[in-house]
């Protein structure tokens, strides 16, 4: 089976991941998934000034997903929408499963994710970027969280649904996954499929997550190596 854009069923679009792309943020990352571009920045942990928002047992994670006005064919109206509010929530919860928030009582960790260009799977690109950025910021985590979407067209399960495929797939199903604990931390779906198919689509998405997990690790390794080189050059 050949896909609309020529990919194999289990082939993810060309992907690049880069850690440490911003100077001011404590941690940052850029993820390009096909033409979808997500950039994430992390600030904190720092003291949460508003007392009533503080949690005496753990840090509060604040996360905002937002789309740049020029990121889609039709201009996106700036500011939070109902869609972006929901996406921010599911991404935040997917990452909370991995972050050791209890190490920073009364603190806040802030994550901002901007979608610079959108062509399918923006929440997945956003999540992958945020996860790298958190690790880049040195925030203790149980594991990286990787994310990927999968779907089904005709009789084939396909990984990383994109472009025209979105109109013909039986479902669009993003998954976030922590490979070390084998746990699913984000799961959404729109579509129409029997239970068995849904399970197979999730399993394929997990395979995609495992592949992207390796790319996330590579991006972080590259960042540390270049840091080391900088230190050495100074010495």
């Amino acid at each position, binding site marked *: 089976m050949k896909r609309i854009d020529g990919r194999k069923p289990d082939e993810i679009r060309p992907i690049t991941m880069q850690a440490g792309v911003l100077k001011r943020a404590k941690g940052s990352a850029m993820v390009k998934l096909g033409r979808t571009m997500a950039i994430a920045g992390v600030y904190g942990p720092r003291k949460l000034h508003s007392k009533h928002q503080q949690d005496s047992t753990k840090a509060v994670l604040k996360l905002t997903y937002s789309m740049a006005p020029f990121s889609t064919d039709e201009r996106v109206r700036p500011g939070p929408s109902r869609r972006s*509010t929901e996406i921010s929530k599911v991404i935040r919860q997917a990452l909370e499963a991995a972050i050791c928030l209890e190490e920073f009582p009364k603190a806040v960790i802030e994550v901002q994710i901007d979608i610079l260009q959108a062509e399918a799977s923006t929440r997945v690109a956003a999540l992958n970027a945020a996860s790298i950025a958190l690790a880049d910021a040195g925030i203790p985590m149980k594991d990286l969280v990787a994310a990927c979407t999968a779907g089904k067209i005709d009789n084939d399960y396909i990984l990383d649904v994109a472009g025209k495929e979105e109109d013909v797939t039986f479902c669009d199903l993003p998954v976030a996954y922590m490979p070390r604990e084998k746990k*699913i931390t984000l799961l959404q779906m729109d579509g129409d499929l029997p*239970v068995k198919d849904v399970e197979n689509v999730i399993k394929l998405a997990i395979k995609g997550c495992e592949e992207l997990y390796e790319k996330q690790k590579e991006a972080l390794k590259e960042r540390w190596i270049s840091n080391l080189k900088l230190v050495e050059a100074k010495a």
Partner: protein
Amino acid sequence: MISRNQYLVDIALSGRRLDDRKADEFRQIVIEKNPIEKAEGSALVRLGTTQVIAGIKMDIKEPFADTPNEGVLMVGSELSPLASPEYERGPPTENSIEFARLVDRAVRESHAIDLEKLCIKEGEKVWIVNIDLHVLDNGGNLIDAGTLAAAAALMNAKLPKVEDDKVVIGEKTNKKVPMVCKPVTVTHIKIGNNLFADPTEGEESVATSRVTVGTKDDGNICSLQKGGTEGLTMKELEHIFEKSVELGKQLRKQLKD
């Protein structure tokens, strides 16, 4: 002395529930049809102590450019301060938005309404169906109660009278909203290693994760959403899917015409 939360966790860890229900047992459901006469259709759903009203208002509008021959479906929600000491007046919160969007997806993705039949003149005039969910009492599991209320309200709605392509206010016809299927969601939560369907507010307050499964009349899954801050294994999901399809069938029986 142990705290309320610890007590709730301890009970759940032992696999039991405060109200003695089984893990896969829903609370009693009572559906009151059309309690709001001014609405085109409405339903009050009582799920245990949870009370949600769904009200339908319809109007004629221009269709969206990408779907010129389809009616428009909109779902809004109001978590009234009546319903919980935690709710405040003000702009919609994250929880309120997620609640409305989950009910929206359950209705939309199950293709419960034949939106093409709600087209009056292609590209110019279509029916807009506004479903507004009003939570009166939050006893837990708003999502499933809200979807039931939306479905019941839709099934009992009557289109308003139209003159010169304008709605005549206060007059209804005998025409029904064209329904193809009955949307239903089933929500499970996880506490410790135990999964429970139809959680109470107390159970929700100590749950680590939540999964909502929307199904169609044929048992296919049409929407999924995981919430909460802990991961779930594939095995747990498989259990939830199986139970949700089964429980969805039971809920659908409550939605008689």
